[in-house]
């Protein structure tokens, strides 16, 4: 097999334009889909398996992270046969704790890195941050791009930064956070998506969760369409991770409908789609319990970790 060509900065002026009105209309159509009965249960279970259970706070402690890992493996044992979540997402200092707690399981350890969330540190600091996370056992790295450099047109800087982080990641999967709430337009979202994918992103991700607006359906649709075009051009399937603001099951199902009708079944797997969320899981569990028993239970029946 020939060695893969080194990544090259694409010409962002040639990236397909985006019409915000059209995108918003299309996104609303997904929300008009009615998902009931068996298709709803299948969707809810799929959503659970795609969650990156996340804690990214200054007050995080090993105890808190261990609780979260426990939840990742035992979502709601009163309902037998549930999938576990895809990953637990923590700060680099908590990776080792999570790694130990999840040892011997399929749940991945994801770590934010590169001076999350602002990314306002020198490249060598970001690379060191990434290296530490990977060495501590992170399977996946969620990096942030330098939005300031991107907005002032230093695309080469952002491209090289992603490529350098990707190299440090080695076998770890790289998710590139565009922080779409700071990019200002859907054209910019599309350009940043193209840039990140060409630089080697395994996933593109909307947000840190620290900036509003975070994930919205129009933004995610634009990113999914960029992923599809990248697949058509290169044959490589890049994953998608909306994060921030997806806190209830109904909205998560709308995202799944959008994924289904935009990228189709090959992407409907935790390997290529994730929800970055902290409170989504319990609402999904409540809905699943309701589908099983016909009644809603008090939120107190579901563990808050």
């Amino acid at each position, binding site marked *: 097999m020939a060695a893969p060509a080194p990544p090259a900065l694409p010409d962002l002026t040639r990236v397909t334009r985006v*019409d915000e*009105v059209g995108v918003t209309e*299309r996104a609303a159509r997904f929300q008009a*889909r*009615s*998902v*009931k009965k068996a*298709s709803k249960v299948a969707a809810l279970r799929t959503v659970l398996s795609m969650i990156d259970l996340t804690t990214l706070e200054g007050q995080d402690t090993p105890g808190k992270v261990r609780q979260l890992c426990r939840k990742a493996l035992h979502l709601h044992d009163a309902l037998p046969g549930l999938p576990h979540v895809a990953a637990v997402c923590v700060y680099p200092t908590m990776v080792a704790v999570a790694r130990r707690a999840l040892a011997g399981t399929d749940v991945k350890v994801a770590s934010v890195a590169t001076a999350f969330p602002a990314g306002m540190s020198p490249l060598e600091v970001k690379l060191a941050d990434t290296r530490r996370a990977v060495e501590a056992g992170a399977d996946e790295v969620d990096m942030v791009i330098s939005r300031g450099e991107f907005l002032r047109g230093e695309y080469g800087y952002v491209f090289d930064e992603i490529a350098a982080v990707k190299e440090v990641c080695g076998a770890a999967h790289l998710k590139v956070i565009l922080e779409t709430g700071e990019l200002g337009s859907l054209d910019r979202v599309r350009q940043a998506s193209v840039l990140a994918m060409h630089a080697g992103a395994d996933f593109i991700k909307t947000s840190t969760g620290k900036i509003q607006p975070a994930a919205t359906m129009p933004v995610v649709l634009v990113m999914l369409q960029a992923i599809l075009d990248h697949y058509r051009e290169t044959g490589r399937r890049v994953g998608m991770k909306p994060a921030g603001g997806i806190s209830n099951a109904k909205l998560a199902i709308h995202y799944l409908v959008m994924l289904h009708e935009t990228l189709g*079944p090959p992407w409907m797997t935790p390997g290529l789609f994730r929800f970055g969320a902290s409170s989504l899981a319990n609402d999904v569990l409540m809905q699943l319990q309701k589908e099983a028993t016909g009644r809603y239970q008090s939120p107190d029946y579901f563990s808050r970790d």
Partner: protein
Amino acid sequence: MARSDTRTRSDTPTRRAPANPLAFQEGWSYAPAPESTDHVAVRERYGLFIGGDFTDPAQGGAFQTLNPATGRPLATVAEASEEDVARAVAAARKAFKGPWGRMKPRERAKYVYRIGRMLQERAREFAVLESLDGGKPIRESRDVDVPLAAAHFFYYAGWADKLEYAFPGRTPRPLGVAAQVIPWNFPLLMAAWKLAPALACGNTVVLKPAETTPLTALRLAELIRDADLPPGVVNVLPGAGATGAALVRHPGVDKVAFTGSTAVGRGIMKALAGTPKRYTLELGGKAANVVFEDAALDQAVEGIVNGIFFNQGHVCCAGSRLLVQEGVADEVVEKLKRRMDTLIVGDPLDKNTDIGAINSAAQLETIERYLRIGREEGAEVYQSGQPLPGEGYWCRPTLFSGVSQSDRVVQEEIFGPVLAIQTFRTPDEALEKANNTPYGLSGGVWTDKGAKVFRMTRGIRAGVVWANTFNKFDPTAPFGGYKESGMGREGGLHGLAPYLTLEG
């Protein structure tokens, strides 16, 4: 009307969707989500609505209206004869000379407003009935047809007592009795388009709905009776072409408003020549949807889909010709095919259905005839691969590519979910092709460049031209055609004039 119960389907052999690498038909799918029909009672028989009440036809004629999604009858509907037309026109005249003509405009406005309000209150019932009788997906009847119909009544209610301001320095007066003949593609919405301005301007009306879709117009007649409009202000006469012909020819009619095919429109013009009757005609179309290489392509694809597959393509202003710039043609067509594969064709009452049933066996035959013509002309055919229901009238979304300006599928209106795709190199070539048609109802332009939008929208000779969108309707916007797409405008301030005399 053709009432064949042969279960015809358009799946003659074609180059069907090849092994789709994304296999939308596999894996997760949506469970059926049918809208309930419990709250919609369809009566076994419907009479004629004349002089404020339902009556039997003079000659006892009747026809069946079918559910096109099953091919089975929904109801038996009285068919109006010449004698019934005379009765209805007399009732309308009486109301015009009587209570309606004497009513203060401000009072008239309240009635028109009330119709819109009641339509909103009973929106679900009307949406379900529209989908049952016409085959259109409930998502469209619920989100487009019924709300827009109500919006037309609200909008024109506002004009009723302000007509002098619409035509400053003139003295607007109603014409008298309006004969209105409407098509089967938007039965309720077309009734609203016609009734709202006519009533707001102080006219009385005899309305003839299409023979395949009379039920919502008859339900609207019930609503109008419930709204306490004086008897005879609105009369509804179901029937086929003969009823319509008798109505427009009746000497007691002052004004004719027709929406339908160009052939019938031509006949009406002949029949009305030399009479003092005023008329407006809204006829066929073969609109070009022009996509430039600098357009937002993913959204343009949505617009193309909305332009041709909305309401199964039974839309006079459908974007039935796609003109795409050569540099992006392959990409656009590939995206389009992919998008077509995600369209859900089936039960019109299912909330997830994107494309419903073809309105009638006769229309399905017409569409299939054009599918044959396209193949004979050497077009490359693509049809998405959805499974179709076993009974009823259905047609898969279809593309014709590799077609020429001289092909019949490029020149003639098909009125189905069939898109003809051509390419162009320069804006001038796009304009020439877009305008090279006897029709001129609508058009679309897709580009990121403002200057190009203005150049193209000025150049396309059509009544409505959309930029970076398609099939957007609003009661405040005039609608109508150039050339053989008709004459006169409906909607907006322009839509008042055809129902008024402005002299003296």
